[in-house]
């Protein structure tokens, strides 16, 4: 089922229609845009201190930060899938009053500056926050400055990407499959798990990749809500920023590592799951 959907998508994206008339004037702004987007990457590659690179990126600090980044981004994505897919289903399939408002509120972190998001998180889940103070009273734990806080910050910022992406895919999935399953006696949950979810696979994968990439690069909300301490909360982007202050070469090297890791994982996932 997914393969058929993917194949048609691919066929379309290759522009197989020979009658397409190309408005060549579009190539000029498109080319300028492409140059604008790839130049910084080229700059990074040119200025990379290649001969120092092994020593710059093999330090235990870098490995610790990289591991922390990968772990927290993956955990944030997992949470986003578990919570976000049901949200997307509600937004796509249910018609109720206030749906637009709900969607706007849920996707607010997309447009909110991450630092503002970090402050908001502190005010909610911080030690004196609305919820955080109660948690401290009952369980005796506080969230800020822990690795869990990094995951929370990343989930807050990245989950909307998954929700938006999955909601879009859900709208493309014919609801008549659900009806057919119902007429054959499938329960509601069975239908969601065995009919809707499999067709949603590519959409969830695309959303998860976006979400993961956003979480991996998260900086503002993390440094505000989780602080910055090596091994606990200092992720790669925080370390890049710190390194930029006193060792620009290290910052460039770390940026390159982050770039390579992101590209490698995105490319790997794209070949396997994403055919768009």
């Amino acid at each position, binding site marked *: 089922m997914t393969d058929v959907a993917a194949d048609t998508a691919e066929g379309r994206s290759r*522009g*197989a229609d*020979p009658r*397409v008339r*190309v408005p*060549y004037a579009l*190539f000029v702004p*498109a*080319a300028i845009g*492409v*140059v604008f987007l*790839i*130049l910084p990457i*080229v*700059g990074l590659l*040119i*200025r990379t201190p290649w001969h120092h690179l092994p020593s710059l990126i093999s330090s235990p600090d870098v490995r610790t930060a990289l591991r922390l980044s990968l772990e927290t981004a993956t955990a944030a994505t997992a949470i986003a899938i578990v919570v976000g897919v049901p949200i997307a289903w509600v937004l796509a399939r249910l018609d109720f009053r206030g749906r637009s408002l709900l969607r706007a509120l849920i996707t607010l972190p997309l447009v909110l500056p991450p630092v503002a998001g970090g402050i908001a998180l*502190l005010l909610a889940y*911080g*030690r*004196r926050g609305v919820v955080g103070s109660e948690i401290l009273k009952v369980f005796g734990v*506080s969230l*800020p*400055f822990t690795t869990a806080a990094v995951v929370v910050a990343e989930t807050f910022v990245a989950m909307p990407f998954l929700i938006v992406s999955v909601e879009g895919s859900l709208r493309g999935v014919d609801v008549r499959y659900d009806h057919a399953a119902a007429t054959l006696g499938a329960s509601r949950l069975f239908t969601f798990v065995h009919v809707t979810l499999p067709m949603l696979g590519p959409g969830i994968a695309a959303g998860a990749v976006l979400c993961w990439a956003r979480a991996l690069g998260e900086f503002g909300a993390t*440094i505000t809500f989780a*602080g*910055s*301490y*090596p091994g*606990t*909360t*200092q992720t790669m982007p925080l370390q890049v*920023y*710190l390194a*930029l*202050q*006193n060792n*620009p070469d290290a910052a460039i090297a770390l940026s390159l590592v982050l770039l390579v890791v992101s590209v490698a994982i995105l490319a790997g996932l794209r070949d396997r799951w994403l055919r768009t």
Partner: protein
Amino acid sequence: MNRNASMVTTVIVTTVVVALGLAGCSSSAPSTAPSSAAPAASSSAAPASSAAAFATPSVSGTVVVFAASSLMATFTTLAANFEQAHPGVKVVPSYGGSDTLAAQITQGAPVDVFAAASTTTMGTVTKAGDGVGTPTVFAKNELEIAVSPSNPDHIASLADVTKSGVKLALCAATVPCGAAATKAFAAAKLTPHPVTLEQDVASVLTKVELGEVDAGIVYQTDVKSAGSKVAGVNFAEAASAINTYPIVVVKTGKNAVAGQEFVNYVASPAGQQILQAAGFQQP
């Protein structure tokens, strides 16, 4: 269709080649830029001192001032007073960790005046050849422990903040307040266990104000500026880690004349009065 495809390929190839070409050019540009900018800046800086001595009202335009995070309150006042005394001049201050600001200046940020919280961070700028003349020390500042107003953990000494159960925020060691704190802890033969290493002193103070940490090592001036939101606890070892604040006119800016005038004002008795009222010590 074939023609379209090849056209697209041509565009992509051209784009990449152009991008690489531009990048190639730009990589050689920075090496020539500072040397050509340097004489221009120093020649305009020369009349600056004479202008300061004789014709003060001749300054005009915008003065971009990069100042350490701990100077925010005083420099905002100093900038307003300077603007009042020099109609037509606009001071645009920007605050941050001294090391961040220094890095931005050495990367070519157009700045007229740099006021750092340590001689080390100032050294980054002067060693890169971005300063005009020698920096002047205009203030000193001592560390202090900032705690919640009621001091619930009964913190009375530097040793108290290293106790387990006390959440401590420090500046990162690359920032002057972090370097000074490291020195103070070393003098006291204590090992701190901070929960976070912040990018500037303002972030440490904020974490204390919000109650997210129990204690933070900041400057006396920060405690003073926070008013009733935090309480300060002095500690003996602070004397071994006193921070000096140097200021210098920077070459990367466009207004060295007004920049020098602003530096003179900061060092003047009027400027010093504002600094000392905020808790800074005499240089």
